[in-house]
């Protein structure tokens, strides 16, 4: 059921999966690896929440049920506001007699959460030549790692050529980190001198992609807190430099959000979006015990969909986001 890379990326005007019927036979086995890993990683999440829900929801729908449900969602970092909305909705449906018993409640809850997660266009269109993907986010959320892994998937799974733009010219050794990723992915790295203007690095990376007919240019940027006005202005400048080189770019602007982030994630998404028009989230570090519920609040309040998730350190641990699976992981199997 989990979505595959070919379902998320639009190649040649249609989801790549449509033309994917003639996949080599080896794909099946390769696919099982990451899929199992994802399930494995989300299992703990499921168990944690399921115990809450099964212990309570299978009884009658009492005042206590709603309190426990509220508690479970708060624990998942869904946030008070979105939690209140979900609980109110379910409570209303129960009062109207649409929900009887815990099982019905559980499945309706899953549905509701998936609906909230499902917002906007959650695919990534890579048909433009070159397609420019800009990565932004707070320090330590996994931008450079995501850039590297994304490059690897695009080259390996979709057979696209990739240029990586080392736009993090601030953090010590960030360029070296991306350079190693570029080698692994077989992507070309474009970098500037240390302390170079990130806008000019982005500009140059896209120029290289255009000159050499590269399919995708991924632009990494330095981590910054959304409250640092000067750094946010710098990020806007990077975006403008990209647009200057290619008017319709960036085609995709992905914000990396750490799944352990609490309610501040909403403010991050809001301010980054104001600055560079975020088109999707990469929810990273979902392999821990954190449930990443803040992504629901972001989808609910700002209409920004999650497009990719990070479930581990390995290359294949960057995965397409599947709302239904995510919702199930939050509540039950």
């Amino acid at each position, binding site marked *: 059921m989990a979505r595959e890379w070919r379902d998320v990326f639009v190649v040649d005007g249609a989801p790549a999966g449509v033309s994917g019927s003639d996949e080599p036979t080896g794909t099946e086995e390769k696919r099982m690896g990451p899929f199992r890993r994802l399930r494995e990683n989300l299992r703990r999440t499921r168990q944690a929440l399921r115990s809450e829900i099964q212990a309570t929801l299978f009884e009658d729908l009492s005042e206590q049920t709603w309190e426990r449900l509220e508690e479970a969602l708060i624990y998942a970092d869904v946030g008070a506001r979105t939690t209140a909305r979900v609980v109110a909705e379910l409570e209303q449906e129960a009062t109207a007699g649409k929900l009887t018993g815990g099982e019905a409640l559980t499945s309706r809850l899953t549905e509701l959460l998936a609906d909230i997660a499902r917002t906007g266009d959650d695919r990534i269109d890579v048909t433009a030549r070159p397609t420019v993907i800009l990565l932004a986010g707070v320090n330590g959320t996994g931008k450079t790692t995501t850039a590297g892994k994304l490059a690897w998937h695009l080259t390996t799974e979709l057979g696209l050529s990739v240029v990586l733009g080392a736009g993090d010219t601030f953090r010590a050794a960030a360029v070296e*980190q991306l350079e190693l990723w570029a080698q692994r992915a077989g992507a070309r790295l474009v970098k500037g001198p240390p302390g170079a203007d990130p806008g000019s690095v982005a500009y140059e990376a896209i120029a290289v992609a255009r000159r050499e007919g590269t399919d995708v240019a991924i632009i990494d940027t330095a981590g910054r807190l959304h409250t640092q006005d000067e750094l946010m202005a710098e990020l806007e400048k990077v975006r403008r430099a990209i647009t200057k080189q290619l008017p319709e770019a960036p085609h995709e602007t992905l914000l990396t959000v750490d799944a352990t982030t609490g309610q501040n994630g909403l403010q991050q998404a809001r301010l980054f979006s104001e600055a560079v028009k975020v088109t999707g989230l990469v929810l990273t570090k979902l*392999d821990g015990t954190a449930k990443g519920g803040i992504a629901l609040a972001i989808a609910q309040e700002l209409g920004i969909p999650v497009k990719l998730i990070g479930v581990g350190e390995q290359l294949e641990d960057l995965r397409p986001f599947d709302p239904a699976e995510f919702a199930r992981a939050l509540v039950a199997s």
Partner: protein
Amino acid sequence: MFDSLADKLQATLADVRGRGTLTEQDVTAAMREVRLALLEADVNFKVVKSFTEAVKTRALGADVIGQLNPGQQVVKIVADELTELMGGSGRELAFSPRPPTVVVMAGLQGSGKTTAAAKLARYLREQHGSSVALAACDVYRPAAVEQLVKVGAQAGADVYEQGTGEDPVKIAAWARDRATAEGKDVLIIDTSGRLHIDQELMAELANIKKVTSPHDILLVVDAMTGQDAVAVAEEFAEVVQFDGVVLTKLDGDARGGAALSVKAITGKPILFASTGEKLDQFERFHPDRMAQRILGMGDVMTLIEKAQDAYDEDQAAELERKLRKQQFGLDDFLEQLRQVRRLGPLQSLLGMIPGLGNELRGAKVDEREFDRVQAIILSMTPEERRHPELIKGSRRLRIARGSGTNVQAVKQLIKQFEQMRKVMRQVAQGRMPDLGALMRQSR
């Protein structure tokens, strides 16, 4: 979301004033608001529950007297309790009588260990005059060793590294021997980020502890962490019994409830706060400020300290004299602006002011506006700066051209200045102007 807790509580407790004491009903209602505020601040659910229970007991029967209204009274009780809980038996780093003192930094990926390690190195060098070495034991993240080499050099510390080919436990043991041999006061061991549920890597951390017998193990925690902070802290506490916490990324606008959760669950003190990208943005942790921050009360103490640093007392006295004599001109206005800007980005300053914060926190402040104002004032003659009323048609045009703005902007600035001068005169005469009205006007 940004309504301050005090305001909400005041609404909840509106009728208490007359009665003079808080009843059980009042307190229960108040605690509902407190609970919500703490949850919004990412304090762990369990911690919120036990905390509000404790506060409830204390608030019951509290006298509502004196300067505080009932809402403020409850907030004060909550803030005091929070401060106490987070401060506890605060402790410094444990320095070994026989150097080197060994400090291990541990935490999740991306929490800021490497930066915090370098900052701590610099802090110890500056505050204690220690000679410090950093050991690069993060062999997993690409280029982590290079990063430590670079920031270590900036911090004035030696960096002990063996590339990424060696086992981190062996590097740690080797670094310890070398620090002893070279007579370093402190050795800070930077470890790779690891998930608390990754048994292999947690075992590795335990082994690093075993071979280096550190005096302090510091858990690095991102201030933006949500409910998961507890699971992380519990696991690290169990495996390596860390001694204290470094709270990072406090320069953002996260309320930082994770700090409270970690302290409440593990009992380990928070020792340091890391507040920016520069190596000197690192300080002792202040529980009182953190309590106010978690409650969304604005970081008044920080603002006051910042203002003290940036404020020149002689200039202030001179300004007061001018105000009284009504000689306050555009030159003085410009100086005021510069002083305010020295405090930091206005946006972050606004957030620190309680009360004002509510109304203005969402407001976008365009810092470039200041540059324009400055350009306009600097394009005036000294005479014009003292007497802006001189500025009419041709002078206005000249100033607009000289500053690269337009006549409209010049006009507007002078108008605003006149308004401000009026307000300042009121202040100087001891009347308090309506700040709210002023803010609305200027927006």
